[in-house]
């Protein structure tokens, strides 16, 4: 086994995904098979190879810090599940 059910449960918490018992079972098997498959990368010698994060080589894209038109508060909140006083509202976080 490359990954255990307990590890899958831990990763689920990291990913903020509530997983059912059935999902934990199936994900453990599926992720194990996929991790087994990707193991082949380890047969390649990549000593000294620079990792590629982007296929097109580019430097930082700087621009002037200018004020430009953006969303109105109404637009920004137009899809909010819950909003009040120009803000997104969620359950109380601090007791």
């Amino acid at each position, binding site marked *: 086994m490359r*990954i255990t059910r307990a*590890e*899958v449960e831990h*990763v*689920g*918490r*990291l*990913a*903020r*995904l*509530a*997983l*059912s018992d059935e*999902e934990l079972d199936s*994900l453990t098997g*599926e*992720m194990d*098979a*996929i*991790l087994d*498959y*990707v193991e*082949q*990368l*380890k047969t*390649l010698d*990549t000593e000294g*190879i*620079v*990792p*590629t*994060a*982007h*296929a*097109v080589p*580019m430097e930082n*894209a700087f*621009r002037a810090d200018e004020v430009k038109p953006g*969303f109105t508060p109404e*637009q*920004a909140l*137009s*899809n*909010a*599940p*819950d909003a009040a006083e120009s803000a*997104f509202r*969620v*359950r109380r*976080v601090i007791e």
Partner: protein
Amino acid sequence: MTIYDLTLAELRTKLDNRELSAVEVTNAYLERIAATNPDLNTFITVCNETALVEAQAADQAIAAGEVAPLTGLPIAAKDIFNTAGLRTTCASRILENYVSPYDATAIARIKAQKAVIVGKLNMDEFAMGSSNENSAFGAVRNPWNLEHVPGGSSGGSAASIAAHQAAAALGTDTGGSVRQPAAHCGVVGLKPTYGRVSRYGVVAYASSLDQVGPITRDVRDSALLLQAIAGYDSADSTSVDTPVPDYQANLTGDLKGMKIGLPKEYFIEGLDKDVRAAVEAAAATYKALGAEIIEVSLPHTSYAVACYYLIATAEASSNLARYDGVRYGLRDENAEKLIDMYMQSRATGFGAEVKRRIMLGTYALSSGYYDAYYIKAQKVRTLIRQDFLDVFEKVDTLLTPVAPTPAFALGEKTDDPLQMYLSDIYTIPVNLAGTCAMSLPGGFSTQGLPIGLQLIGKPFDEVTMLRTAHAFEQATEWHKRTPNFKV
């Protein structure tokens, strides 16, 4: 010939000659969609009202002599593009009721030309899939055979063009999601070089791989639509500020001195014999047209799928963290604590494949595994990219299959994620390398399903790739066949 059988270029001529109005064209397409969508399930949203308003505006522009290349032409967009005032669902329950407050740049650019947006197209949820079976709005069916998948993730886009529900469509391609469904539906799908088209307003899956691409009935239309959307955009700092050439003007048919490479690693076990025969026949056609065919090698090809499923899922796990039920999208109202609200909203809103990829990506980025999986995959990506740069020292274009087999049957691969991933083996390396590629019709299987040919071009040399594709299209009739799909 009915209105909805015309290409973009043919419609342009008829609109300019006043043989047709944009309203007539739009009505013809809306009727066609209404008649065919129940069987195909290609559209998530049909713009019955707004399309006619846009068509009227296009007719006024034409009457005033203000005609851009796409004015009045009916175009549909994968439901991954933000479209102001319209729903953008990404085929996910989590965005089921999300209405975009703004337009993606690609949408804004075709709207600026007064194209008519006829609807938003079905897809694999968050563009994750190769069969369009991972949609919260149901699977899309292939117009060539309703029991087969259209491919994915832009399955609705490709099927809609094959079924003449729109004259052209916009899709996105992260690991083959424009090219593979285009191949399975017998239409033309182009993935531009990374950075050629702005990704602004396109719901992100894997940001270092995602690219917007046109799906059309022929190569000329592909050039026409690419022309409209290509070019630097200050809102996407990964778009590249280089001049956009005139794609149509370069469709000369001239292949003199052209060197076309056949990468030997693409003709391996598992390649369907009909697909192999079609690619070999295409190579013979190119030879007859004056091109030189050269066998080449891309030695790291077999590592591409493994490399992709680490990099793409890692990026996805980060990109999809934004769906937390706070600012937009589905919120689980029952959770007592904030963290439970996050976890339950995501659990309810995401489908199985999206969860699988978020989990795999989170794992690959997690403490203790980051170097072994994510950084290792990025190093292998360097080797894969170098393969392409080396081979493009010797040839102008590569000719390969798009997918190992023609479209598979609905349900055939849903129980085995890894088998599904392996169907992208010929398209994934291109995204990792960041270069351009396209799928064009290249024949039919003995079962009567379309077979796609892939041309892979040098970075930012879409011109040569399109010219090569167009020359083949001129010499063959495959693109003129339409599915025997009657309503």
